[in-house]
């Protein structure tokens, strides 16, 4: 008899449960969305700073040109400097007797490779690197020489065929993240004839195992030259390596033979193919395209002539094509930091630009083709450009890398462009997933995502987001402090009443203008400044909990700020001057370079202040400066932070 009532009670109960569930789900989705947005903000910060740095890098090439143009003056004042800068590198890099003479001691317990290499050597290396062993320079050089010989036989574009039973795997940027390569090989299998791979550039820089990644990839290539394909990325460039960490990694791990290794790598990079074409349908290149991309031309250029993005071909006219003999008798020509030699050893300007476009461009939603102002090289290309170029060569799809994506991959331009990025946690633990793609003719591409973690399982999303977000904010604050003087000047200009306050709009506008970073400033303001109850911003509050460490108390803040801001550029310049990689430069060299730097970058710093600084830094009092120590002395202190030194990546 209680049928009616009990069922209606049940209904009521389940209705309540339904409502409760709805409440919880609703709340959770709101919370989850906020976390995701915070992740996006953090990534945007990282990316903006990264690209602004790349722009700075390309600006450096202007500085080198500037140095060239002024070299006659420098020559008069400082002939030693000229020898360093413009020393023609006549060393024969193919001299193999160099490495043959290297001794591998019996005490060496790292991996020993057996030539000719087989798949067991790939395994051997992987196991050894998992134990954090370092491959002896002897084997490194052997691998490098063999790799170079083989690469020289490869065409600019490798044409590959797949079949339904033979898929090919395409991986994007690895950037020295060895764990990601291990994970890919583990999840997807080692390369073999039935398991071919394309690695789409940017194997090195930033991560701390670029050397190990190169070794594994090159050995894989030597064992399976027809099934392991390597494309050149914009970081396969010896000058980029100087700024982004790989040069330092090599010199640190290989104190005796590092210089030789770097020299050989310089060449190997130029011999890396430009791209791969799969089934005559899919173009795989590192960066992107431009409206003038000419694949036919690119198939035929002499790719090995492009040494570095920082060494564009020098136009030949009366003023520039000068040769000067110096007292030593060798010929110094005004052709570049390392002489390119004669005209015939350069690409034409047009050819050079074509390659730079391939290595540096990014797709965007906006139609048309525009200079890539974010990075300073290559262009932004829209969906119309993609269609035009793909149609022109009867291709169906472009697969590229070059940009970090939160999910490890991204599809755009109506499915015609896929970005694949294989370095998970690229900016910070938890920042993004990595991915790889498997393709075969006749089927749509399959995507595989992953995220490397040291723990046995991922921390919950909100914890990961907190870590990523804090790191991004730290980096942003360091950016701010490095331009403190300029920022304060602009703030004060707008603060006519000298109240120390600005409206949110004024503050945001100033930040974007001075820092040159396209970020959601209003949303970020709560992390960066304090706001009063009327909604106005106390603009000096950003600078209260953070300052640049003063290595020498008496030196002006502006000098400290300037050196800190340009520390990466200075690192490269010092590395270039320090041709014997001793880590030291003389005081005169330091002063000359600083003078040139000052005038090109238009920084206003008192010369005597810099002298004072340099004198103090010459700890040995022997007239030479350990520039790594010098630059490391400029770091940012976050007052309310557990970490006392920030993660300043000097290079």
């Amino acid at each position, binding site marked *: 008899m209680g049928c009616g009532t009990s069922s209606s009670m049940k209904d009521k109960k389940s209705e309540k449960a339904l409502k409760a569930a709805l409440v919880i789900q609703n*709340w959770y989705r709101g919370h989850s969305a906020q976390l995701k947005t915070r992740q996006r903000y953090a990534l945007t910060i990282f990316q903006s700073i990264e690209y602004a740095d790349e722009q700075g890098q390309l600006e450096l090439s202007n500085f080198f040109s500037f140095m060239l143009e002024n070299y006659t003056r420098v020559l008069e004042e400082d002939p030693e400097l000229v020898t360093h800068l413009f020393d023609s590198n006549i060393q024969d890099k193919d001299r193999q007797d160099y490495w043959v003479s290297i001794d591998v001691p019996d005490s060496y317990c790292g991996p020993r490779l057996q030539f000719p290499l087989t798949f067991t050597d790939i395994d051997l290396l992987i196991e050894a690197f998992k134990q954090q062993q370092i491959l002896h320079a002897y084997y490194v050089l052997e691998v490098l020489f063999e790799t170079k010989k083989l690469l020289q036989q490869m065409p600019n574009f490798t044409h590959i065929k797949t079949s339904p039973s033979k898929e090919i795997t395409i991986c994007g940027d690895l950037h020295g993240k060895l764990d990601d390569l291990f994970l890919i090989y583990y999840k997807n299998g080692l390369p073999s004839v039935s398991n071919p791979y394309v690695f789409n550039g940017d194997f090195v820089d930033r991560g701390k195992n670029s050397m190990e990644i190169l070794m594994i990839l090159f050995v894989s290539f030597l064992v399976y030259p027809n099934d392991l394909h390597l494309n050149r990325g914009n970081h396969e460039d010896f000058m980029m390596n100087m700024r982004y960490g790989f040069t330092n990694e090599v010199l640190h791990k290989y104190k005796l033979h590092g210089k030789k290794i770097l020299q050989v790598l310089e060449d190997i990079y130029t011999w890396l193919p430009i791209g791969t074409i799969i089934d005559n349908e899919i173009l795989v290149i590192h960066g992107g395209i431009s409206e003038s991309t000419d694949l036919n031309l690119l198939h035929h250029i002499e790719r090995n002539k492009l040494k570095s993005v920082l060494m564009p071909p020098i136009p030949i006219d009366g003023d520039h094509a000068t040769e000067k003999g110096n007292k030593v008798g060798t010929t110094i020509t005004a052709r570049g930091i390392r002489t390119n030699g004669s005209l015939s050893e350069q690409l034409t300007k047009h050819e050079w630009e074509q390659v730079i476009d391939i290595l540096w461009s990014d797709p965007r939603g906006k139609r048309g083709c525009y200079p890539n102002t974010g990075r300073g090289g290559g262009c932004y290309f829209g969906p119309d450009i993609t269609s035009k170029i793909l149609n022109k060569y009867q291709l169906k799809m472009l697969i590229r890398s070059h940009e970090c994506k939160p999910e490890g991959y991204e599809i755009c331009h109506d499915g015609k462009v896929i970005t694949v990025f294989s370095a998970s946690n690229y900016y910070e633990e938890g920042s993004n997933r990595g991915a790889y793609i498997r393709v075969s003719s006749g089927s749509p591409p399959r995507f595989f995502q992953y995220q490397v973690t040291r723990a046995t399982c991922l921390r919950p999303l909100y914890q990961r987001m907190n870590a990523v977000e804090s790191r991004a904010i730290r980096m942003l604050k360091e950016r701010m402090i490095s331009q403190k003087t300029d920022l304060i000047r602009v703030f004060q200009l707008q603060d006519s009443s000298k109240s120390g306050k600005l409206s949110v709009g004024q503050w945001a506008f100033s930040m974007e203008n001075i820092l040159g970073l396209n970020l959601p400033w209003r949303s970020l303001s709560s992390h960066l400044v304090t706001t009063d109850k009327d909604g106005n911003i106390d603009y000096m509050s950003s600078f209260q909990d953070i300052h640049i460490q003063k290595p020498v108390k008496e030196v002006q803040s502006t000098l400290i700020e300037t050196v800190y801001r340009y520390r990466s550029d200075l690192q490269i310049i010092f590395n270039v001057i320090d041709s014997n990689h001793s880590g030291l430069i003389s005081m005169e060299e330091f002063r000359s370079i600083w003078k040139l730097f000052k005038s090109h970058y238009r920084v206003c710093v008192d010369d005597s202040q810099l002298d004072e600084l340099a004198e103090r830094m010459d700890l040995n009092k022997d007239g030479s400066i350990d520039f790594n120590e010098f630059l490391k002395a400029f770091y940012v202190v976050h007052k309310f932070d557990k970490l006392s030194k920030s993660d300043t990546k000097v290079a």
Partner: protein
Amino acid sequence: MVFFLRDSEPPILQGRLAAGLQGSRTPRHSLATALSPATAPQQDGGRQRQGRRREIGTIIRSLGCCPSEGELHDLIAEVEEEEPTGYIRFEKFLPVMTEVLLERRYRPIPEDTLHRAFEVLDPAKRGFLSKEELIKYMTEEGEPFSQEEMEEMLSAAIDPESNSIHYKDYITMMVIDEN
């Protein structure tokens, strides 16, 4: 840390809302900046003027609104193109969203309501839900979670030793984090 508009309405928001009612630019501007990271910021000066359809939910929720899935669906239908392209145009989205904000529609769930909802699912008042119970409710009732959503929620909510969710602690933890 106050990151977004919240229902406790700090003075900034009130100022903006007031300004909005007078037709000033401020609420539109904050929407624009809120949108920019989610819609791939352009560094060539032009902000991308369209967002992907499936990201609209994230954007709306990150602005402090909590529509249900059904309400979200209706909202998207309002701003979508006649021929769905998969993209939402900013010019169409902005006025609709501004109105949603000004009308204070889809207010977020207050903490005690959330707590009571958990208590409804826990009639024995043990103070926790078992993993199986939570999964059952979240994936079978209301507007069910996807597997990914379920896993994500569990990773933060679950107490690995007892394999249960102590909801009071969980809620406290989430609310602190949001601040």
